[in-house]
């Protein structure tokens, strides 16, 4: 059981850290409420409109997600390309499988119309 005493200390320190930092924040923070405190922060300037005045299409989100997927794909291609001769045939087949799986995803999003900008 002696092995577990450090764990107990670890848990107590974690809880203690939480309590101390919350208490410290409570003691030291600026007490002001309302006024400019509740305004959206815009680089020190006064905000001249509200966030929900500027609606933009949910499609941006979809495009961003799809971009991330294919972006990461490209990142994976780089180390493989650099090590191409050492990874040899096995690496080549593996990468082709990886790309084939991504193409499946690509065909899927295409068919579902996620790439139509209309």
């Amino acid at each position, binding site marked *: 059981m002696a092995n577990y005493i450090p764990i107990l200390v670890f848990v107590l320190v974690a809880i203690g850290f939480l309590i101390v930092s919350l208490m410290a924040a409570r003691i030291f923070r600026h007490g002001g409420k309302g006024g400019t405190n509740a305004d959206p922060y815009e680089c020190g300037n006064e905000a001249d409109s509200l966030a929900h005045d500027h609606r933009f299409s949910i499609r941006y989100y979809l495009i961003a997600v799809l971009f991330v997927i294919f972006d990461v794909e490209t990142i994976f291609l780089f180390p493989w390309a650099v090590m191409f001769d050492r990874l040899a045939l096995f*690496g080549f087949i593996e990468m082709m499988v990886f790309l084939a799986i991504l193409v*499946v995803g690509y065909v899927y999003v295409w068919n579902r119309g996620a790439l139509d900008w209309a």
Partner: protein
Amino acid sequence: MTAIPIRDFLLLAPEIFLAVAGMAMLVAGSYGRDNGGNGHRGCSVCAVAALAMTGGLVFWLQGGREVPEVILSGMFVLDGYAFFWKILLLIAATLTIFLSERFVAEGGYRPGEYYALILFATTGMLLMVSGFNLLSIWISLELMALSSYILAGYFKHQLKSTEAALKYFVLGALSSGILLYGVSLLYGATGTLELAGLSDALSLAVAAGDGQVLVALGWLLLAMGLFFKVAVVPFHVWTPDVYVGAPTPITSFLAIASKAASFAVLVRIFYQGLAFLTPDWQWLTAALATITMIWGNLAALTQKNVKRMLAYSSIAHAGYVLIGVLTATEDGQWAVLFYLAAYTFITAGAFGTVVLLERRAYAGETYEDYAGLARRAPFLAASMMIFLLALTGIPPTGGFVGKIYLFAAAVEAGWVWVAVVGVLTSAISLYYYMGLIVQMYLKDAEDTTPEPLYAPGLLATVGLCAVITVLLGLLPGPLIELAKGSLLPLP
């Protein structure tokens, strides 16, 4: 120049086939603008065919092994234990697809996507139970979990379902992080991730003295992550909301397949990877099993919603299964295998009954909605009664036999007090299971009580589960022999 391990990939053909089948279904289902409606029957037939073919491949390529074979440089292992779970998980996935028929047809969802997600989750589970390296286990677990998060939120326009998916995702991601943290600490202490060498490496690290704290913290975090996946108190808070919010066929999928696969991995990691720490994890498991049985059953007492009651009941049953896990004996181990196999059919049947009675999203799930069911649908009521008796552990059902063996194994291994808690809490559970039986058989239906749906496929599935539940109670021999032949070496 790496040699290509062609043979290893061929041995893994069932999993590869299932993944490819899922992708093919995803692409095939994405053609056309039609939103559900027609194709669902074709898709469900294809999905069942894919699962059946995977089962055939598992039998052909991975079955009948006396000696475990480690493949792909220690990433996966093929042994009798993995074989048992793979067949059980394929059956569980098939039952889920049978239960989904109505949900997919009525919801107007694209059937290809739904079934593809089930196939992906099943692929993850099959890889998980074969995993022999902490990282390959973790990645397969994520494949299962990510597919389940989406499936839990499948009622896209229902607040409860979205809430279920979000809670499941946030807590699931947190627990995966904790699990991975534990794995990284163990790796730091031992320098290995392979289950085969982990236990010896742990004893060396502890003997050397400086690794003691790393090892202790590492395995505790790893165990916490696993306990979250099997929904053990105090890591169970996600379960009731997710089970209620998710579409009922998916609830059933989480309760049978997800839980069985997670238990399979938990036992493998405890028995093979953490064998050196056996007394430690036995005590932790005993403590958690006790809290889980007590809390799960007490919380189920106050439920008004049948799905929520079944959720708490599934928490309580995770506690019973842990009794078998903690014994670390052969008897305990095959009792776990037997119990989870029986539980698969019992729970699939119980949720199948819920599917037949519920209406549009979440109506028809309260105890009152079951009033007078014996007169309105005698067959359905009788089946539900069998499932409830089996969950309580009353003969002649598979649930009774499973519980007896679990408790007997615990007593033989010297964990009498845990078995006593198990028996006492089973007695408590009688109250809320009986409450539903009383509603079905002794109360009269109001005019507003919903009529059960007439769906021959679903009814046949529920009936099949009821028959198997009773058969396992009367003739448990064959399944016990099967389980006894699929054991892991003891820690």
